[in-house]
């Protein structure tokens, strides 16, 4: 006791240090603010502030026809925007009762799994960067570039993709897109293997991440965790299995789970999910190749009131012109209904709660953003750990500021 500093009665000094981690700090990978109370290097408590990039998507969505909401979903989890886009399309299709041709479903699975890979590889390599190992990041980053090039071939853009339409894709995959996919499937596994060699059994990395930011399965469920973060605690909940969408039930894949829910388990779960995604892409790609004749050219369902007609038809056919006009001007009434639809986003269950009163726009649209819900566990995760563990815990949770704030 004697060597402890004692403050005089009524002193405004305190024994702990207050540290503002963020809002714009290179270690936070986004606009996150945490006011930490530190005792030396140990975190005593944390208060998270969110909302720095809130853009009122839910309000905006109330005045937009369905297809104009897709670009809003891009900007939520911008590391894997195609998954958000597809989730929104699937929600609309469920509301409208549209069934898609199998080929579209499989093409969607290819795109969704590619973006899951691009999301997980960023997250995992950033965990590496935060624990002092930059090479993994450098090795994997080139494959994100390749994935972005595939998006570019499919939809023309890279980061905020606005990929696909209600009812399918805006155009068929080009030959170039398939070539790039071939290239990805041929080269990525070897690189991922090398990445794993660098990290998985690396003594420094293991000591750095094992036991860092752990959470039990009970607490994780109570905190509403979903996705890889929940699976790292040992709960095998995956929307792709529990509520299959987009023909995921046609394929065989495994759901990796961890045990302790610490940074290391989250890292391993994400790595294994990338392998599963590669396998899913291969399976879906094989099925896509099996289509012959007219079926091999199908890339959208026949829903003229929601799917934009081809431009050359717009100029020559009356019907196509009318549909084009009505869609662009947002003059199509949506059937009334109430629907909660969710998909497995890269971070967890991405849900869309859509209420339509029969007007042209949703009456209410709520996004269930997995990040927003599990971020509230962050103070509990880092409490009692070191400051540097707080940083690595944040990156291994894969917090995306855009998704957090919507």
């Amino acid at each position, binding site marked *: 006791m004697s060597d402890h500093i004692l403050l005089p009665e009524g002193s405004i000094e305190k024994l702990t240090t207050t540290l503002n981690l963020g809002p714009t700090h290179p270690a936070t990978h986004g606009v996150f603010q945490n006011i930490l109370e530190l005792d030396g290097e140990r975190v005593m408590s944390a208060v998270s502030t969110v909302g720095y990039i809130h853009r009122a998507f839910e309000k905006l969505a109330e005045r937009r026809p369905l297809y104009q909401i897709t670009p809003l979903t891009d900007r939520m989890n911008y590391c894997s925007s195609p998954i958000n886009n597809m989730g929104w399309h699937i929600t609309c299709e469920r509301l409208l009762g549209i069934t898609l041709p199998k080929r579209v479903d499989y093409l969607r699975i290819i795109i969704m799994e590619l973006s899951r890979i691009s999301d997980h590889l960023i997250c995992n390599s950033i965990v590496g960067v935060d624990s002092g190992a930059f090479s993994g990041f450098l090795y994997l980053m080139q494959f994100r570039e390749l994935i972005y090039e595939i998006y570019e071939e499919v939809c023309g853009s890279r980061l905020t993709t606005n990929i696909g339409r209600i009812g399918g894709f805006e155009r068929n995959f080009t030959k170039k897109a398939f070539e790039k996919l071939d290239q990805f499937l041929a080269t990525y596994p070897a690189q991922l293997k090398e990445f794993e060699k660098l990290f998985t059994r690396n003594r420094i990395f293991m000591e750095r991440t094992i036991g860092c930011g752990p959470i039990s399965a009970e607490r994780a469920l109570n905190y509403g965790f979903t996705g890889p973060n929940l699976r790292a605690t040992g709960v095998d909940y995956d929307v792709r299995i529990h509520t299959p969408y987009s023909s995921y039930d046609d394929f065989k894949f495994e759901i990796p789970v961890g045990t302790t829910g610490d940074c290391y388990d989250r890292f391993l779960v994400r790595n294994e999910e990338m392998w599963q995604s590669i396998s899913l892409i291969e399976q879906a790609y094989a099925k896509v190749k099996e289509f012959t004749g007219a079926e091999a050219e199908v890339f959208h369902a026949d829903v003229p009131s929601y799917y934009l007609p081809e431009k050359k038809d717009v100029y020559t056919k009356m019907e196509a012109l009318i549909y084009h006009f009505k869609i662009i001007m947002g003059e199509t009434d949506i059937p009334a209904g109430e629907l*909660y639809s969710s998909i497995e986003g890269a971070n967890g269950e991405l849900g869309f709660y859509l209420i339509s009163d029969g007007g*042209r*726009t949703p009456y*209410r649209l709520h996004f269930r953003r997995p990040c927003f819900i599990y971020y509230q566990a962050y103070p509990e995760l880092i409490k009692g750990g070191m400051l540097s563990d707080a940083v690595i815990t944040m990156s291994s949770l894969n917090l995306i500021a855009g998704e957090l704030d919507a």
Partner: protein
Amino acid sequence: MSLTNELIQQRLTEKFGGQLTGWSLPYGMLTFTGPKELNLKVLQFLYDDAELKFQFLTDLQAVHYPDSIGAELAVVYHLHNLTDNIRIRFKVFTDIKTPDVYSATALYASANFMERETYDFFGVNFMGHPNLIRILNVEEMDYFPMRKEFPLEDQSRVDKDDEMFGRG
């Protein structure tokens, strides 16, 4: 044994009688409404009951219906039973002048941010919430922006006099 919608409805009706109303199945999800004073009792029962086990709060948000006087705000809970993989939707309606609803934070830690968000946008006062302050909007804001009295310009409005595109 797997849980079915009928069974859930039966168990809840046994327990709460006629207090739960508005049973419906929009897009296959069992939906019902309860009085707002009972929201915690219903949630607790759904959580504790050995058969029901709705222990995962998927989502919590509000909806504003300005035209239904006396029940303008609906607080909507989406619950998920992960063992039997079945979801339900539970709504409570509240008057907009006294939007007091009991907080579910004691039952679900995940309700903390979600209730703060709902308070932030709709002004639902969650009684018993440990820290009911604005979360996404600035602290100085003195209105609840998701309420319907704050409209955005309607891009698909029909009253617009627009000669070029023939509307109105």
